[in-house]
């Protein structure tokens, strides 16, 4: 078909009406906004590309819908990732493909049946077209409005010191202005909470997360916690770009995530963890520790233990005592591309594992290692108590 520009836009918006309604229903059923966000992205990408297709493709043979659809799929998925739309990959692909197939069926069969001159009108829908377009836009605007209105409220924390503990017991986005400090810790007990741009000082745990999912902690600094810098229990968290200083803390961990194996994987990424017994402690979890910098720990740099499944990748562990990275107690660990250096022998311990190892697999743990750079340690790696290490 040789589409006119108006024909492309009308056909696209009319074909989007049904997916839009389905997305609204899905959003209600799943209690998640990603279907509406996804269909909004699909429309945005499509409407942005329609003028391009109009110029580049004067006549569009039937087969050309497939490559054009693939380009749009790539753009939609890329934007979804960029904008952090929380759509499961399989679900998003299925939704896109379903909507695309529906659009093909409408364009090839339903629209020509409903409007006899559809083809020769270049995809324009006549008097019905503007109505369908308006309906699609109204539904999208309404759904988007509801989605927007029901987003967690944004709570701004002004510059200066705020006395804690702050208890976040309902969904919200806590955003600190430059210079915002909480003294006495933050406690999260609700789902769908994010904390950004805040410095936390003191408290037993600088930030404590309990029984919560969809928790995002970004660009936070934690200083002077008495136990753990960030303590996570039975929760699913994403922790990025953080800084936790535990210098002088004899028993605490920088980040401790425990007992989350029944939940979606948690992520610790690009954090600087200094001091304490352990930098990152992952106990009975599904988790990924990626691109972090752990230093000056007194027991182990990164620990994965108690039937945990974890990927430990791209981290820098240095200047610690005993063990750089430990995989223990029936855990399964994928340890790759880490840089481990300067792990010293623990002179206060007679435990042979603490003679200064880069990587240790312990007590029935299965550890896969690949492309790690271990230097300045007495031992590169070792397996103890019926544990395995497999090098790739």
């Amino acid at each position, binding site marked *: *078909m*040789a*589409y*006119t520009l108006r*024909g492309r836009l009308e056909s696209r918006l009319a074909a989007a009406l049904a997916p839009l309604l389905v997305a609204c229903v899905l959003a209600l059923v799943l209690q998640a906004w990603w279907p509406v966000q996804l269909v909004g992205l699909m429309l945005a990408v499509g409407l942005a590309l329609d003028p391009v297709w109009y110029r580049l493709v*004067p*006549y569009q*043979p*039937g*087969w050309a819908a497939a490559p054009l659809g693939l380009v749009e799929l790539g753009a939609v998925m890329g934007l979804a990732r960029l904008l952090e739309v929380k759509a499961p990959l399989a679900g998003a692909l299925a939704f896109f493909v379903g909507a695309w197939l529906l659009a093909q069926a409408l364009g*090839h*069969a339903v629209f*020509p*049946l409903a409007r*006899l*001159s*559809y*083809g*020769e*009108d*270049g995809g*324009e829908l006549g008097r019905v077209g503007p109505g369908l377009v308006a309906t699609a836009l109204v539904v999208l605007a309404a759904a988007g409005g509801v989605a927007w209105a029901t987003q967690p409220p944004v709570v701004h924390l002004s510059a200066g010191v705020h006395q804690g503990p702050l208890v976040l017991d309902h969904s919200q986005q806590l955003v600190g202005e430059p210079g915002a400090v909480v003294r006495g810790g933050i406690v999260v007990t609700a789902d769908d909470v994010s904390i950004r741009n805040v410095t936390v000082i003191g408290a037993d745990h600088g930030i404590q997360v309990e029984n919560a999912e969809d928790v995002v902690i970004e660009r936070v600094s934690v200083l002077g916690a008495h136990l753990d810098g960030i303590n996570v229990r039975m929760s699913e968290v994403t922790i990025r770009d953080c800084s936790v200083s535990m210098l002088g803390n004899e028993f605490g961990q920088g980040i401790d995530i425990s007992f989350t194996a029944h939940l979606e994987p948690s992520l610790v990424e690009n954090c600087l963890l200094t001091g304490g017994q352990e930098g990152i402690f992952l106990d009975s979890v599904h988790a990924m520790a990626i691109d972090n910098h752990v230093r000056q720990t007194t027991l182990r740099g990164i620990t994965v233990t108690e039937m945990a499944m974890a990927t430990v990748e791209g981290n820098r562990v240095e200047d610690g005592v005993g063990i750089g990275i430990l995989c223990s107690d029936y855990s399964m660990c994928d340890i790759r591309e880490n840089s481990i250096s300067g792990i010293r022998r623990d002179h206060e311990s007679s435990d042979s594992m603490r003679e200064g190892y880069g990587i240790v697999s312990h007590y029935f743990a299965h550890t896969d290692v690949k492309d790690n750079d271990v230097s300045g340690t007495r031992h590169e790696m070792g397996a103890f108590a019926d544990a395995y290490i497999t090098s790739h």
Partner: protein
Amino acid sequence: MSGTCAIVGGGLAGFCAHATLRKGGLEPAEIAVFGTDPDPAAVWRVRSTAIRQRRMRSESDGHCAPSSFPGLAVRTAIRRRSPGPLVQSLLDRYHPTVDEFLDHVDELRAATGWDESFHAAHIERVRAVDGGFEVDGHGVYPHVLLAPGHPGLAWPEGLEDDPRAVHAYEPHEFEDTVEIVGAGMAAATEWLNALDAGASVISVRRREPERHPLNLPRVLFSRRGLAGFHKTPPDERVGVLERFGAPSYPAGSSWDEPVEAARRAGRFHVSAELNGAPQVVCATGFKRGFRHDPLLAGLVAEHSLETAGEWIVLTPDSTVGSLTDETRTLTLAGVPAQWAFPAADTLMGAKYAARRFARKVAAWRTR
């Protein structure tokens, strides 16, 4: 006799209009079709048989049904229980066979009640009167669609009475050596027919044919290309239509390989002039222009209709503007409607006029 609509011309363009009106809700009794043969494909059948045409140049939507879906590819795929025709259609490679097309015409003829609307009559005059158009003594109709078809076969000068000459669209066999005049679809088909019959072929043509899948660029079958065409001033549009009339046939090995093989074997030559062969096949198409059609010429003369070159000037919706208003419609369909739709002599063109005619009728009925 009188009714809502009259279709003057019982060929494929009239047939498309009838089917479209029926889809629009008119009963067969409300539509009077005037033609000379109750079979809407009668004339076309003779011509396609004469050139031994096996496949249509048109694609899946080259049919007479009012809606483009389901096209002939879908129907064939269902009948053959094979996705092949659909895949070919996606690639613009599906061309229905002539038999498939004619079967479709027969089915549609029965389904639309064509025979109930058909009246055997040769209409020589249509004139505007109060409340509509008087159709040559057969009554007054508020809405009339004229689809008189091609006004006759075109012969090269001096050959019409030459005993060696036969027109491609007339039944014929081939002599041992045959000169084929023309360079369009019919000529190319006749090259292959004559070669297939064992003849040596001399292609007589003054210019090389263009190679297009369809007889016009695809954008000219839709508003995208038509919008610009409709904006061209009359003088310029005449030039455009004359250029569109240049002979062409599709590209592809099925056309080229037999000709190349014959050329290598010395059985295919190209010449700019006739050279005394025992048989001359004139694949020169049809006479052009309204002046060759007594009905249209009379209409123009009687109502002083605006013309440009060989064409009656039409509005973009294929109506005669000066004789069409809220109360009546005069539409041209088929080849005389090229002023509105350059590919008017195709099935797509017939439906273009039919759909707009049906829209006018529907608006009149709901007024």
